[in-house]
């Protein structure tokens, strides 16, 4: 762990899509913790410290033996609670032998892991990501594993959509974004940036989605749930039909979903989706929207990643160089304040987490 913690540990973080976790060993690094995930035969997901108690070999290099994991080096076996159930060349098992078992839950089509104090792992604290359930809203997203930037840079990116005008010109970018004021509100655990662009020409992407000529009201209501989930309620409706007052019936509504998981300091996993509540049976549209976001470097998220990774590299070659802020950064700064408060709270009361500690 770095000198200054860059992420809280007492939080649920997305670790995988549910469909990715089968009866096989899958390695993930979450908040600097090497973790091995697998699905037990009863369907439940197990998440263990990916490091054998004995000689630290990653357990993910071993194999499943029923619902237990056998280390690929000396054959120690650990059950899904992390307890050792077999040791070679002795008739007993050292009672201290165990690996950490992480609290794990499946919700909203994602596997969530709590890397902090297990006693605090309350399922009610899983972020609201219901747009990803595949019911009322549909869309097929993906994951950028090991994206080479601090997860907070992605939060910055999503909490300030001014960048669309410059990074995503020709699709969702539009001068109207930079010309329209916005409002930032916040709670104890969330920050919301709201921007309404009234009576504008729709940018190319939204013009195709609404499928009708004419000017529109466009909204971007982006909510950060601390420490690492961002949901953007976005869309357009024919201008003058009451969308700002709540009637979106003459428009199209989408949501961009981001579950950002620190991998370690300076890298993250970015679970994303873009979902919509219109033309929900249109499988081709789902594919097209996915391609619009990720497409061999041509998608809008590909465009973001070029910027985000370059920004991280610039930060690393300029250690200690401050960020200066503009008024457009208010949403991102509220998000970072909430993250910082969580980190500070944890730093004030560190807890023995690892079964294995130096000393």
């Amino acid at each position: 762990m770095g000198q200054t913690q860059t992420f809280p540990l007492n939080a649920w973080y997305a670790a995988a899509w549910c469909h990715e976790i089968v009866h096989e060993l899958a390695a993930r690094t979450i908040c600097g913790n090497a973790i091995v995930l697998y699905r037990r035969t009863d369907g439940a997901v197990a998440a263990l410290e990916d490091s054998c108690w004995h000689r630290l070999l990653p357990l993910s290099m071993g194999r499943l033996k029923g619902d237990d994991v056998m280390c690929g080096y000396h054959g120690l076996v650990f059950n899904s609670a992390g307890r050792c159930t077999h040791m070679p060349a002795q008739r007993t098992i050292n009672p201290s032998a165990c690996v950490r078992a992480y609290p794990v839950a499946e919700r909203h089509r994602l596997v969530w892991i709590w890397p902090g104090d297990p006693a605090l792992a309350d399922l009610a604290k899983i972020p609201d990501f219901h747009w990803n359930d595949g019911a009322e809203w549909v869309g097929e997203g993906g994951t950028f594993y090991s994206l080479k930037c601090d997860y907070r840079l992605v939060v910055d990116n999503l909490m300030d959509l001014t960048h669309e005008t410059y990074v995503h010109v020709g699709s969702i970018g539009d001068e109207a974004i930079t010309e329209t004021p916005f409002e930032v509100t916040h709670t104890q655990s969330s920050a919301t940036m709201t921007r309404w662009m009234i009576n504008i020409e729709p940018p190319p992407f939204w013009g195709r989605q609404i499928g009708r000529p004419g000017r529109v009201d466009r909204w971007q209501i982006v909510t950060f749930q601390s420490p690492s989930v961002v949901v953007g309620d976005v869309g357009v409706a024919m201008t003058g039909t009451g969308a700002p007052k709540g009637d979106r019936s003459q428009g199209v509504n989408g949501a961009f979903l981001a579950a950002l998981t620190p991998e370690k300091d300076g890298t993250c996993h970015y679970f994303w989706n873009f979902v919509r509540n219109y033309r929900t049976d249109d499988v081709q549209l789902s594919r097209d929207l996915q391609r619009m976001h990720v497409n061999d470097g041509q998608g809008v998220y590909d465009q973001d990643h070029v910027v985000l990774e370059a920004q991280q590299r610039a930060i690393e070659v300029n250690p200690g160089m401050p960020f200066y802020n503009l008024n457009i950064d208010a949403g991102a700064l509220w998000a970072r304040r909430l993250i910082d408060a969580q980190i500070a709270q944890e730093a004030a009361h560190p807890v023995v987490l690892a079964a294995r500690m130096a000393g």
Partner: protein
Amino acid sequence: MSTSGHSWQRARLRSVRDLTADVRLFEIEPSGAFIAPTPGSHIKVAVQIEGRPEVRSYSTVGLSADHIYRIAVKRAPISRGGSAYMWRLQDDALLTISAPDNHFPLSHGCPDYVLVAGGIGITPIHSMALALAQTNASFRVLYACRSAADAALADELRTVIGDRLVLVLDDAGMRIDFEAEIARLAPAGECYVCGPIGMLEAAKAAWQRSGRLAAGLRYETFGNSGRFASEAFRVKIPRLGLDLDVPANRSLLDVLEAAGVGMIADCRRGECGLCVLPICSVNGIVDHRDVFFSDEEKAANARLCTCVSRVVNGSITLDTGHR
């Protein structure tokens, strides 16, 4: 054992309080970083025994929300000397302590738990019970001790967990019925035991007979209790021409190391099996205090764990790997 590692720090003994006639609670305020102990954690304390620096491990008591470490130490008439040192300490004494570590972690989300304490073994069990009570888990605590007056921490625990605490008192002729207790535990439930080795062996035997998965029985041992009281004995190693006294308050391993015998050891609490030596002959009874050997291996008396095991009524002749 060295106390120079980064996890050691100075601390102040804020206060002591007698919980019973022979169990004393120590409140220890670290001078530097505080790391909250999780249930089952222990801290190490640097002690002096007959002028020698040694290290003792004590389970932490309670959840330490106030950033104070608490340990409870039973004054043993014959001990390895740690308790006598601790009991001589006065308020404001300066201590050297380690950060907490946990070899006896409590699982989370188990459907049912039975926590079993024998005597001073209540210390980790007490912390576990408090943590389980906070999460509304299903659990019971069985606490065996000589008499109600000896039941350290029982009153405090009862105010939090009520009749989920069951006292099993020797002086009332009571004994823990492990068969029955394990039978009433939910199928995927876990049993945590901290107590003297006789209790642990009874728990292990009953657990094994129940047919449950071995990993569901959790226990911790500091290797300091046996079937017999500690007494002095002699050890001979013909290969090295050694004939040594092992005093009642020192381990066989310590005496061998002090005499220059090359030994490999790690856990020093009878778990890992590294300090094992072959027995050539024994005059008396070997009190196997480890959890490394199986019952059959202990009965065969071919080897012993030198870190914890002792001899009663006599002497022992050992071999070493020295060639």
